[in-house]
């Protein structure tokens, strides 16, 4: 009997469930699933000590427990607060929570570059998902954003601090998966950065996992960077007999070519089993792997858009079709829209074609 874990009843957004004692509110919410699950940018269930930093998972506790039913005065980080018997939690049903969450998203985005179209993480970025759900369409931040130089941390990993949201996950990975952590957080406040002191490469068989845990595009795979967009790739579960790790991975293919290898991730975007650098960076041939079948991707994920069935590659390249001419614009916009002034040669305008340009032309006439 002594070994038996206590079971606590907890109510999250009017849904009552039973979970083991010692479960965090976030994990309890995840066992319910659906909309009540608070977003988590820094918490990672497989990394001890992670969480509590990004504040996106704030929830309101309206009753602490059956024994002490007082509400908690502040919103609490659900990832680091354990459930109690009879606890009542409000996640999306609380206006305070939604407001705070929107605030946190705004804070996270003020210094994050909004250049998703050129970011390698686009399509699998947690911050992108979060801002679609909670962000505003406009920004109230009118100042220059914080920027950093890109750094290559060895041959495989690139760090672009400009995108970092300082979740500390990569620091925990290095602490808990490798023998010696070689990178950490330098400075403090809004000028703090993840860095190796001073310029070092990260050498460890498992350090590649920092790429998988990074919720944004701050740590990217140099062997894959800008090779392809994730939604053009088809993920497939595969395994190999690896002496270092479990060898269970996801291959990201386009055609027969393996573009990249990542660990398998669950529905919360968390790695199921850590993989080694050999599997991740070296084994990029289909013949290295035993393919199990397509990875199940959420129907709503942009990645599931990448199932190109029955597409046909053109036989010749575009200039051949166009009689040797390499077009600047693929579509002649004059024929599509009356708005554009057909008199103006778009190719002769310096810089982007804005309304000012068209206005000036009219004045001259």
């Amino acid at each position, binding site marked *: 009997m002594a070994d038996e874990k206590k079971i606590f009843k907890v109510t999250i957004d009017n849904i009552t469930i039973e979970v083991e004692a010692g479960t965090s509110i976030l994990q309890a919410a995840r066992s319910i699933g659906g909309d009540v699950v608070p977003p988590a940018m820094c918490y990672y269930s497989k990394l001890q000590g992670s969480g509590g930093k*990004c504040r996106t998972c*704030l929830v309101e506790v309206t009753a602490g427990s059956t024994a002490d039913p007082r509400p908690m005065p502040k*919103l609490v980080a659900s990832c680091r607060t354990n459930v109690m018997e009879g606890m009542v939690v409000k996640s999306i049903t609380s206006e305070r929570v939604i407001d705070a969450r929107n605030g*946190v998203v705004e804070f996270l985005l003020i210094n994050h570059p909004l250049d998703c179209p050129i970011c390698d993480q686009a399509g699998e970025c947690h911050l992108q998902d979060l801002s679609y759900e909670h962000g505003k369409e406009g920004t109230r*931040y009118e100042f220059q954003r914080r920027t950093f130089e890109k750094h290559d941390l060895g041959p495989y990993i690139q760090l672009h601090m400009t995108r970092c949201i300082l979740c500390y996950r990569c620091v925990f990975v290095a602490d808990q998966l490798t023998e010696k952590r070689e990178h*950490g957080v330098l400075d403090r406040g*809004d000028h*703090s950065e993840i860095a190796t002191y001073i310029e070092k490469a990260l050498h460890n068989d498992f350090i590649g996992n920092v790429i998988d845990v990074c919720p944004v595009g701050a740590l990217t795979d140099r062997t894959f960077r800008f090779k392809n967009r994730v939604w053009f790739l088809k993920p497939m579960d595969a395994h190999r007999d690896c002496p270092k790790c479990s060898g269970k991975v996801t291959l990201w293919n386009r055609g027969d070519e393996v573009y990249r290898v990542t660990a398998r991730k669950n529905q919360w975007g968390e790695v199921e089993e850590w993989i080694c650098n050999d599997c991740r960076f070296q084994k990029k041939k289909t013949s290295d792997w035993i393919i199990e079948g397509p990875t199940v991707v959420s129907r709503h994920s942009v990645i599931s858009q990448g199932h190109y069935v029955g597409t046909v590659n053109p036989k010749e390249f575009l200039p051949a079709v166009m009689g040797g001419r390499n077009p600047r614009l693929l579509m002649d916009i004059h024929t599509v829209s009356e708005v554009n002034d057909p008199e103006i040669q778009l190719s002769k305008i310096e810089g982007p074609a804005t309304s000012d340009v068209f206005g000036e032309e009219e004045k001259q006439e």
Partner: protein
Amino acid sequence: MSRKVLIDKVNIEGIRFYDEYRKNGGYASVEKAFKMSPADVVEEVKKSGLRGRGGAGFPTGMKWSFLAKPEGVPRYLVCNADESEPGTFKDRYLMEFLPHLLIEGLIVSSYALGSGRTYIYIRGEYAWIVDILEKAIAEAKSNNWLGKNILGTGFDCEIYVQRGAGAYICGEETALLESLEGKRGNPRIKPPFPAVKGLWDCPTVVNNVETLAAIVPIINMGGEEYAKIGIGKSTGTKLLSACGNINKPGVYEIDMTISVEEFIYGDEYCGGIANGKKLKACIPGGSSVPILPANLLLKTAKGETRMMTYESLADGGFATGSMMGSGGFIVLDEDQCVVRHTLTLARFYRHESCGQCSPCREGTGWMEKILQNIEYGKGKLTDIDLLWDIQRRIEGNTICPLGDAAAWPVAAAIRHFRDEFEWHVLNPDESQRRNYGLAHYADPLQTVTA
């Protein structure tokens, strides 16, 4: 004349050194406490009603009784001497001129809590005070007040001084513990609280310098006697470090029975506003507590006289009140610009945010930039609402109180001096020429002639 129990002997020549300190009744509390059981010492502190002097004002006896006491696990007492709050310099004064008072308080407290190894975590900038403290510890040790088997009671205690490296955040107790362990000074997520899992995962009590020094008079005169000083739950005396536009800036010990008005205008204390100017506003408890305009500072919203007590200063909540805080009493005269003042504070908090959690890391920088714009005549009226919105979303949503500390001054400045912000926005040229802000907040009340 206000009663002094902490710094009453500070003017005795040579009180900084052991011999003179001992001659003047020093270390008597250790002798007395060691005849009592540790639980009785804690009980005495509880009776005294002593509240933490670091800023939060949590009852010290209660904090001590929360300390977990598992078998075979060491317990630690840590003295928080990382006094970095702008406007607060009372601990420096205490440590510089009465180092043995702190050592004495530490020995008694260590005995009460069963801490064999006690640490003083001191602000790195107080470099010369480290030498003073270490000399005092060496003196105490050579006179057998520290080390093994103190006074033959079998109690062993060592005190170590650890220097910080210049971070305001390391004054937050869990960040202090991280820093003491040799890690990056990031606040920990609570729970677990230090009383359960503190330094090296052992139960730990972190107390302010002044709190620990106040243990000495409590033991000497008895908790009940100490509780008779002051009003209500604000027992004992409090050190206040007064600065700003006053005639006599400095550290004052008050028993908490005087009014704010008397403290500002009384000859015994600040001696009135400098250069014959008028009082405009005041931050009564260190930079992070809300600023109050003169009319609300001297009288509460209900029209009662505001006293220098924890309760009276907090009367009216944040809408019309403030906090006792750490006792950094900053006075602004009619010539001071609240916008510029708020900008200075915002810059400080932006610089000192640890960068761990997002609202504080990003929000403090954002607030500073907006305030910079308003101050330098580039602001918009919507910026003021934006500032309000930002501070609202930082407050209470962060790991540690630094987020609150950064949000409160901005909130209070907008709450009480919104027209001054608007004046800055609407008169950008004039606000650049004369940076006085508006002067009509000057006190409407008669000054006390003591």
